[in-house]
Every structure is written in C-alpha cells, then in structure tokens.
C-alpha cells in the first residue's frame, strides 16, 4: 500500500486543483472578498511557475542521481511503512525550515528564492512564482540528510511533494485566521502573509513549510498584526514584470558585487553573507533601525506570540 502510494506524483495530481482554486480566488476577490490581483503580476508568477517545472525536468535526472548515490551510502535501512512515512514527513518539514531559513540568510540561496518573494501581491498565483535556478543554487542538499539516514528516495520525494502542495493554499488573503489550535501548530495564511511582508517587523520570520512549531521552537515566529498589515514584496521591488529578469536579477547582482570585490572577505560577503550586507540593508539592520526609530523593544520569544490579532 505505502510502496504504491509513494510512486504517485502528488504535485501532478494537484495541479488541476491549483488552477481551480486560483479561478475561485479570482472570482471571490472580484465579488469583494479580501485580496487582490494584477493580471501582469499573475502572468509573471505563472510563467515563473511553468519555467520552474521545465527547469526541474531538465535537471531532475542529475539531482535524482545524486539522491540515489547518497541513499546507496545510507546509515540505516528505513522501511516503507506508515510510521516511516509520518516520520519522514515531519523530518522533511524540519529540513524545509532549515532550507528556507538559509534561503533568506545566505545570499547564494536567496538569489534563487527571491523569485518567490518578488511579487507585491499575495494570492494563490504567488505560490506558483518559483525559481528557475533551484538546482543551480544547490537547494536540494537540504533533503540529502534524509537519504543519508536511510529514508527511501521515493518516500522523500513524495513527502516533499505533499509539503509543496500544503504550501499552496496558504498564499491567500481570503482566509483571515484559522482556529487557534490550528494556528498554534500549522503554518497558515496569516503566518505566511507575515513571512512575505517587507515591514521590518516581519523580515526573516516564519520560515515554516507545514508546521509553524519550528519557528516557535527556534525563535523566528512573528504573528501577523492588524496594526501593521504586511507590505508584500522585497526591499527593492523589481521595476519590471519581465520573467527573465525576475529569474536572474539577484544572480547578476552577485556577479556585479563579485567583480567589484577588493578582498576575499568582500567576495565572500557578496556570495554567502545575508542579503543586503554590502548595501547595509540586511533584515537585522533594517529591524534594528526600525526599532530604534519607533522606540520598539526587541520582542522576546514569549512576546512574539502575543500580538494583536489580525481579525
């Protein structure tokens, strides 16, 4: 049963549902529900999503080869069972948290991930705004530990697919808050709206994929606040909808800064330091500046969860 289940490509099955939900959201927003679309922005997001699928297919074989190589050197033989499926899903989500945090804190990974944040809108089409350079940025290395432990590749791929599907529905403004217990454990539209916010309060917060517990555990949780609604996008929003520029702009930024580097330290900063280091605009710097301006005390871990409800 499980061995048949994990041969399914859950993302391929979900794509019609993605399309249907985008249509429903478009109609709902048109009828006055909360949210917004811009056809040009949606076009860019959908083209990025299509390009990401094509890029994944092109390099998928090489990534699969690396995955199988690592699995051949596994530490344990993890069987295909219900418990290993559940364990793999939770550990994969922890791996996603580490990947996602790295994708915001290391410019090399950010150059690939920034694509997803480059829309000033937040709707279901934003969920499909995905990178074309994920394999180039080596983002897949964050899933290799599961294979090294001994989880079968098919199981890891299946769990990754389900994780990706879960993250689709949280890209919406239609949903305010879910029940309290759900908000406590799961990543939700509210938590992820905050993640997409460029307000200093929300920068580099809520890295969760499925379970928000990782952010609560590791001190990166920030609740969405009604008195500080997220302004979506990136610190320097792009001035074009051109998908090619969306795909490569940060890579070219790295190349430009590398070319101008006068020391190894500067070159390292151009590649691996937090985004904004060279311009003095990292998330930490912006938050500190905002806190100093507004007289806001740095929130403790307990205070972070006690924000004003959004609705």
């Amino acid at each position, binding site marked *: 049963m499980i061995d048949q289940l994990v041969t399914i490509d859950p993302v391929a099955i979900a794509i019609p549902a993605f399309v249907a939900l985008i249509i429903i959201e*478009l*109609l709902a927003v048109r009828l006055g529900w909360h949210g917004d679309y811009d*056809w*040009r922005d949606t076009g860019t997001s959908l083209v990025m999503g299509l390009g990401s699928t094509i890029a994944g297919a092109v390099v998928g074989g090489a990534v699969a080869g690396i995955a199988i190589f690592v699995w051949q050197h596994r530490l344990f033989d993890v069987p295909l069972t219900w418990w290993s499926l559940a364990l793999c899903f939770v550990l994969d989500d922890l791996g996603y948290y580490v990947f996602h945090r790295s994708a915001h804190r290391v410019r090399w990974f950010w150059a690939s991930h920034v694509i997803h944040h480059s829309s000033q*809108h937040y709707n279901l089409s934003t969920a499909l705004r995905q990178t074309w350079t994920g394999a180039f940025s080596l983002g897949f290395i964050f899933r290799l530990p599961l294979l090294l432990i001994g989880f079968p590749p098919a199981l890891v791929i299946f769990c990754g697919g389900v994780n990706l599907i879960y993250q689709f529905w949280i890209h919406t403004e239609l949903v305010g808050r879910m029940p309290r217990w759900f908000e406590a454990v799961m990543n939700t539209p509210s938590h992820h709206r905050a993640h997409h916010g460029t307000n200093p309060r929300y920068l580099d917060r809520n890295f969760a994929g499925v379970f928000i517990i990782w952010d609560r555990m590791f001190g990166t949780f920030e609740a969405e606040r009604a008195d500080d609604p997220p302004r979506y996008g990136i610190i320097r929003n*792009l*001035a074009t909808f*051109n998908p090619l520029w969306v795909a490569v702009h940060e890579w070219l930024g790295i190349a430009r800064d590398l070319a101008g580097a006068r020391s190894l330290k500067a070159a390292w900063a151009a590649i691996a330091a937090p985004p904004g280091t060279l311009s003095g605009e990292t998330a930490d710097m912006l938050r500190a500046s905002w806190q100093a301006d507004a007289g806001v005390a740095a929130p403790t871990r307990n205070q972070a969860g006690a924000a004003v409800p959004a609705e």
Partner: protein
Amino acid sequence: MLVFSLIGVALLIGLARLLGFARRGGLVDAGLAERLAVDALPGFRPCDVAVSRDGAGALVAGRDGRVALVRPLGDRFVVRPLAHPLVARAGAVLRVRPDEMMFPETALDLGEGAASLWAARL
C-alpha cells in the same frame, strides 16, 4: 503537456484581465508618494515632494539629503533612492533613470520651474 500548460497559463492571465484586475497605479497624490518612500526606505524623513502632473511618478526628498524616485508598476509602485541617476531635462519634463539594470526611465512632468530645481538637486 507543455502546450496544455501554456494554454492554462494564458487562460488564467486572460481571466484575470477579463475580470478587471488591470488597474494602473497613477501617482497624483504627494502624500501617497511620501508614504511609499517612508515605507520603502527605513529612516527616510520626507521634506519635499514633486509629483508628475500625469501621474507618471514622483520625486521625494529626505531631510538627510537623499532623494527617492517613486513610480507605478502595474497597480503597485516601486521606490528607489537615487544615487548617481541619469538625469535629463527638456523644459517642464525631467527624465530620471536610476543606475540600475532594467529600471526604466521615468519622465516626470513637473513644470519648468520645479523640473529645473529638481534637476539641480539630483
């Protein structure tokens, strides 16, 4: 498969446009230009603003000497602090382009006096 995907993408884009999600963000309000600059540039304190008469954009000066360009993109806006911009004035129109790839030139119809003043400022 790729053909079906392309058709699906085109249909969704067309539907979004058909449903009216095609607004253009005109910038005619000085207060909005100031707020956008403040939101985008931490620590920015506006002290002067000039808005293009056709809504094509605005220049916002800060107390610290920085000048920000605000221009529409779709139904939203983009803001850039101007460091070494390309500037050209022709009568009442000031053409400004930040030193950044793929950032389009913005033609600001400010009126002759204001265009001259802001050209000197940049």
